[in-house]
């Protein structure tokens, strides 16, 4: 399967809506087999979603993301693992080891439902008082 990581220098980009570059990684049997840097440019977020679909991406790992873009990606069948922070290599390794829900990879201030793709991790985090939606 192919995953895309929204990148900025060696780290994850803070917001997919404003990011211009992704790293596409081909994964087989939980191992990286190929990688490719792809420039998304300043196109609209919905166009970026379409481009990811055209590249055959099944999962996107990114930082903050707006609801409208998640819906766009969702409608194209792309799974979103959002509100992730850290270095690209560490995040990729954690994804391959199925440990992306570790506290050090959690970006604060995510909206309810934005981290559904992490399975049970939301419950864990809320228990530990992280990634809680702030009362406004």
């Amino acid at each position: 399967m192919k995953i895309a990581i929204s990148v900025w220098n060696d780290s994850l980009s803070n917001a997919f809506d404003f990011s211009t570059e992704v790293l596409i990684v081909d994964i087989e049997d939980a191992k990286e087999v190929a990688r490719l840097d792809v420039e998304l440019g300043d196109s609209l977020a919905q166009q970026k979603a379409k481009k990811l679909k055209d590249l055959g991406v099944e999962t996107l790992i990114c930082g903050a993301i707006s609801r409208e873009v998640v819906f766009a990606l969702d409608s194209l069948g792309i799974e979103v693992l959002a509100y992730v922070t850290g270095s690209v290599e560490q995040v990729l390794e954690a994804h391959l080891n199925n440990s992306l829900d570790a506290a050090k990879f959690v970006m604060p201030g995510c909206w309810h439902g934005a981290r559904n793709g992490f399975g049970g991790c939301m419950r864990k985090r809320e228990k530990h008082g992280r990634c809680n939606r702030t009362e406004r």
Partner: protein
Amino acid sequence: MSNEEDYNQQEIILDSISEGVFTVDKDWRITSFNRAAQEITGIAPGEAIGKYCRDILRADVCQSDCTLQRTMNTGKAVTNNVVHIIDADGNKRAIAISTALLKDKTGNIVGGVETFRDMSTIESLRKEILQKYSCEDIISQSPKIRDIFEVLPNIAKSNITVLIEGPSGSGKELFARAIHNLSLRKDKPFIAINCGALPDTLLESELFGYKAGAFTDAKKDKLGRFDLAQGGTIFLDEIGDISPVMQVKLLRVLQEKTYEPVGAVTSVTADVRVIAATNKKLETLVSQGKFREDLYYRINVMRIELPPLKDRKEDIHLLINHFIGKFNRIHDKNIVGVTDEAAAALLAYDYPGNIRELENILEHCFVLCSGDIIQSKDLPLSLRRSSNNDPSCASARGVTIKQMEIELIRLAIDRNQGNKTAAAKELGIDKSTLFRKLKSLGL
């Protein structure tokens, strides 16, 4: 006062203000985060403190042109830079940020401070107003144009041939593009050609292309505009200027949906929507025998008539704001508007060149304007002459040439704050000529 008391007092002050404030250390980690910052971003201070500011603010400039970094590098404060962030509710919000250096008691730089206020309400109001008066790239609050806006989506979806009539510069191509963009052909090409600009033989090969060997220098096949527009839309501007021979050829394309490239022996099917435009009255040309009646009826399936700008003066303010925004981006300026005097002159003018002329006038102003507001002195001379206090209006009052000359010189000197060299330059005469005139006219 102890340090702890001092700190608590600072926190109370910061929490009492309505602008979001956070501070960072030299490693870009947040060291304080006030209540308004929490309200705007949706992130609690407990979650924000110690984190990289880019992970908390999540602004579009964080990874391209960080405002705080600019201040840290140059030492210069930045004020009211409008950026977009993603808040903790997953909404994109517009905020205006200001940045400054944070120094300790001895004057050493220890980090930066960023203040920001929510602009989303202001921006949503601005967008609402713009949306109310716009369709694709066209802006208007004129009832005539808004009537067109209402029918434009239906016209676009219908796939019929459209004729757009209107004077030069009234936005005919913009409307043609809007029809294309609203149609099912929007993902296919939009090809525009000015039929009046080309002689017959060239126009034919431009429209239909040619085969190798069709004429001298035709060494290989060339695709015509109809080929390039396959599946999309072709915009034939100045259709009223084409010759009778070309009118016949176009009629065939519209009737039979086929054409032959120059030198070809087989026909090509044209799956192209045609939008034609003219600044002439085609009906009049038909009655004069200059335009084929059958072609006119083929083109005139749906007619859109665009009024000249002088008949939709209610749009001038909207258009001025639109072009100011556009030229601010192009010329990297921050002009906020025009003075009442300049606006009055812009409203009083008749714009024979229509919107294109207004656009050119404002670009002229942008080049000359040195402040943040366009003034009368930044307007082109022709426009200032047409305003009411201009001596050219005096002709109606029966004044002499000498009196007009006195008035013209006096106004030029006034406009240039008494600088006679600048006044002479503006009047297009030599400085010595101006001095001679001043003497002879007794000024």
